[in-house]
């Protein structure tokens, strides 16, 4: 199923999602999960240096939006952006290669895990300073509006991000200009190690702020790919038609720590276990089985995903480190880094 079709399907998915889309949602979630798990293994083997922020447990959101978006729509995401970047169709070897600091990395090793970008697939960057990419997404949406291209910008961020100034500025700006941008807050209950409720004046950090920008409050179960997909289609479509921005709060949970260094000991006992019961992949697999999808069909998807991850891993491992000569490349559009003549 090529991405063009995806877009058209999505727009039509007001009622029943349809089995083809369902399988696509499952495939995407499985790929994101397997790839993140592989990233974790590669850490343990010390093949990934630096930091890394996994989305284990949050895959349904990236998958749902990935399937719902038109190929020429734009994604803006955070340092926790492996899933969102992959969900747009970025090369898995490019992602793993970047995490490993290899030449084949999406960014040639220059950016690292926090800055995954694949412009060709509409993944317009991962931003590691909290809040910064919200206004940038608004700007892309402005460009779509200006050119009448019908493109939509989708911007992912966490619950903790709702307390920084740039969030406020971007939301007001987008609302006033009626920009085609969908802001998606993935509320996983924590900023880094601090529970979001301890630092936020309202229970729903995004939804309870929507009214401040004249927007409706939208809350969705971010562990349910179908529900999230429906919401994604609805608000992307609305934005595309000139209906302006949306602010969606997707409730979810990260299974691992904030980043590589974090054992997540701050979680109350039983919390993880409770959420593991609501693992989006488990839920979705059961649902598909209930809807009559054959065990073999799902197994095929899973095996294909695993092969893809294995191949990507092999490619990335085989790739050399980037050349030292690259250091002074690509500061400027002329390809160089010269600041003097």
């Amino acid at each position, binding site marked *: 199923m090529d991405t063009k079709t995806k877009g058209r399907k999505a727009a039509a998915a007001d009622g029943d999602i349809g089995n083809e889309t369902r399988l696509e949602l499952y495939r995407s979630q499985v790929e994101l999960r397997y790839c993140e798990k592989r990233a974790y293994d590669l850490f343990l083997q010390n093949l990934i240096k630096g930091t890394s922020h996994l989305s284990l447990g949050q895959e349904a959101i990236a998958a749902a939006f990935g399937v719902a978006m038109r190929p020429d729509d734009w994604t803006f995401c955070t340092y926790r952006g492996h899933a969102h970047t992959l969900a747009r169709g970025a090369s898995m070897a490019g992602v793993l290669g970047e995490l490993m600091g290899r030449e084949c990395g999406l960014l040639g090793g220059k950016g690292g895990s926090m800055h995954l970008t694949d412009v060709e697939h509409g993944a317009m960057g991962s931003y590691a300073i909290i809040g*910064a990419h919200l206004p*940038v997404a608004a700007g892309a949406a402005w460009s779509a509006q200006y050119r009448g291209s019908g*493109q939509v910008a989708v911007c992912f961020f966490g619950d903790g991000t709702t307390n920084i100034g740039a969030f406020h*500025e971007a939301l007001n700006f987008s609302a006033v200009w009626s920009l085609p941008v969908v802001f998606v807050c993935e509320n996983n209950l924590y900023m880094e190690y601090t529970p979001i409720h301890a630092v936020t004046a309202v229970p729903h950090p995004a939804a309870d702020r929507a009214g401040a920008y004249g927007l409706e409050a939208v809350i969705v179960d971010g562990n349910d790919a179908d529900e999230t997909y429906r919401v994604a289609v609805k608000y992307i479509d609305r934005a595309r038609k000139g209906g302006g921005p949306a602010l969606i709060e997707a409730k979810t949970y990260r299974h691992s720590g904030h980043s590589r260094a974090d054992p997540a000991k701050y979680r109350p006992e039983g919390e993880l276990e409770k959420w593991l019961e609501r693992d989006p992949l488990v839920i979705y697999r059961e649902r598909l089985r209930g809807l009559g999808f054959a065990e073999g069909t799902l197994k095929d998807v899973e095996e294909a995903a695993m092969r893809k991850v294995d191949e990507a891993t092999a490619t990335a491992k085989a790739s050399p480190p980037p050349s030292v000569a690259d250091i002074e490349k690509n500061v400027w559009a002329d390809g160089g880094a010269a600041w*003097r003549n």
Partner: protein
Amino acid sequence: MAELTYRDAVAAGIAQEMERDERVVFLGEDVAAPGGVFKATVGLIEKFGPKRVRDCPISEQAILGAAMGAAMTGLRPIAEIMFSDFLAVCWDIVANEIAKTRYMTNGQIRLPLVIRTANGGGSRFGAQHSQSVENWAMAVPGIKVVAPAFPADVKGLLAAAVRDPDPVLFFEQKSLYATKGEVPDGEHVDQLGKARVLRQGKDCTIVALALMVHRALAAAELLEKEHGISCTVVDVRSLVPLDTQTILSEVVKTGRLVTVEENPRLCGWGAEIASIVADECFWDLDGPIVRITTPHVPLPSADQLEDNTIPSVERVVREIREKVD
């Protein structure tokens, strides 16, 4: 050649580029209907309409973020930050996002955008509306930095900045808005990264920027007439890229370097140039490198204080007489 004010040269430069390229859009606070608080963008909304010339909320992060997002998706925005002091409220977007994104994405994202801003002192506005912060920008890899001294350069360098494929921070000295100068008729596009030698002398090379260029020129005249000291004056015009060729070759000719900077002393652009000269022209220097800067204080507001804080013509004359002979 028409005579234009520095202020009108801004609007002329923007208009020239908006006329030739649909992708050029302009946004900022009070820039459209009101024509800007310095009246530097009067007439643009009438000419290009509210779709291309847009008033924004007081949201500098959103303004520059929007410019960045638009630039990466095919537009060529010009964003105004009313006073350069306010760059501090959106410094993340400038220094961490706009400047770094091309490099971090290994060239995938390009950001052809211009940030215009009113820089510098002389208007008794006090320390939060008078700073010269071009050195803040110069310190950040990935953004070009331009600061014109004359109306012709305003128009020509602004046009060049708009056509440049990289982000450019364009500092307009607010005390110069009312000054006048000849500007070439018709399309006028200059080149980034070229300093200009405004005057040749034998004893000393004065390197200056923006408002300080005017004071350096006046000082050079006095030094020549009244004290027999003959100075070269170089207008740097562009800090990044920096025209080290011109600067170094002019220093070699006179054997002395004096920088005249409006910024507070520490880490000013003059320090950078001094360090380059002290390395690359060491054997050509006939005496110490002198930096004339604002003392390292926030800028005071009262006229008497402000005038005695920013380097004046008299101070330039005095320091050169004392230190260069």
